[in-house]
């Protein structure tokens, strides 16, 4: 297991509950993880996306404490944007500005850097990805995979200590997935990768299994993933797709 050099864990949750409209989305989740590559696996609707948002500080838990880096990301938004970044599933629901450089610049401006500095940092980020020619490109001309890359660049430009990837490969074709995966591998910050696909997490350091809002298991991928796959296959042979969620 590759340990972080800092003292504080990648993240820690203590008795976290998230309830919305009387429905329990996360129930009593407690976990203390200290690893560079963390996977979170679970069915769609299991609560793992909410967990991602809790870790990013976008959702404040109804009860319990959250710590990522050294801070509570929901209560301390100003510090949070310097520590944790999040990449969502659908770039169309994430990109706000019309051109690539504006989109990447946004987070940096929010972090308080001056305009000239930001311009330099944007150029540097684009260069690191070999995409300097994208600077003035219009977002609507890009493919889904290219847009997802813009989102990644926008997040990494802010130099977060932890990057949360929430099902970043949704809807992308195989070659694009492979290319994007290579960019992810080069990330030096800690990664928390949320996915319903166990194959993507086999090389990770630590995997959490979220099931129906609770932490069902955690550990090395070789231990957790086979159990998860077996359970998923069992469910696949049944017919719970017929159940209506309330």
């Amino acid at each position: 297991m590759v340990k972080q050099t800092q003292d504080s864990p990648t993240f820690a949750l203590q008795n976290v509950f998230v309830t919305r409209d009387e429905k329990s989305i996360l129930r009593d989740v407690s976990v203390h993880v200290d690893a560079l590559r963390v996977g979170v696996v679970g069915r769609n609707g299991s609560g793992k996306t909410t967990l991602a948002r809790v870790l990013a500080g976008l959702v404040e838990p109804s009860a319990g404490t959250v710590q990522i880096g050294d801070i509570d990301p929901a209560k301390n938004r100003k510090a949070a944007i310097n520590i944790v970044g999040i990449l969502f599933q659908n770039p169309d629901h994430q990109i706000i500005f019309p051109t690539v450089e504006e989109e990447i610049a946004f987070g940096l401006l929010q972090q308080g850097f001056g305009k000239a500095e930001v311009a330099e940092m944007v150029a540097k980020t684009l260069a690191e990805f070999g995409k300097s020619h994208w600077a003035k490109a219009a977002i609507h001309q890009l493919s889904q995979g290219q847009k997802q890359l813009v989102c990644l660049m926008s997040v990494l430009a802010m130099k977060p200590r932890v990057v949360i990837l929430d099902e970043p490969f949704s809807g992308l074709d195989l070659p694009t997935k492979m290319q994007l995966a290579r960019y992810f591998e080069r990330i030096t910050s800690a990664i928390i990768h949320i996915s319903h696909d166990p194959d993507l997490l086999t090389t990770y350091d630590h995997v959490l299994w979220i099931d129906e809002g609770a932490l069902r298991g955690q550990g090395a991928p070789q231990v957790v993933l086979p159990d998860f796959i077996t359970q998923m296959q069992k469910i696949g042979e049944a017919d719970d797709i017929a159940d209506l969620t309330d």
Partner: protein
Amino acid sequence: MISLTSPIRTCAHNWPAGPKLMALCFATMVLFAQNGVMFHLSVFALVMAIYALAGRTFLRFGLTRLRGLWPFIAVVMIWHSLTKDTTLGATISLRLLNAVAMANLVTLTTKLSDMITVVQWMTTPLRRFGLRTKQLELGIALVVRFTPVLAYKGMQLADAWRARSGKRPKWQTIVPLAVLAIDDAEYVADAIKARGGL
């Protein structure tokens, strides 16, 4: 999407919407024709009694829906106490409360589907003028279907903003939301065409 019909059933829930709406129109006209403060006070008592007939929860429902009017009533009462005509102020306020309470009563006791039936009935004679009622019905269905979808996407964009900023989203988030609405419209148009078109 949930309509404002009250889940607490009353006998009025079973009455057809058309007559209820006509009664409301008539009652509202009477309300605005009368100027006596005692008249409006009695009407208010009557309307509250009707709400109370359906139980305490229903009455509470009804009263909550009147809460949004308090700024207007405050302005009116302050205005009229300054012009030394508080009786008129009270009349205006009571009339307002009555009109809104009666209208809400119809909304609370009428199902969306019953309302749509009235709309269909009202627009049938307009068909000869080119109004295609099928399109109206489909349009209504589409709005009900897509409002939560767009609201969800709007929240996602707001989250995307908040994830990189300490602060609340600014107006720029409307642009990608409108683009999503336009793109969804293209998909919907294709879906309609694929199932026979209009």
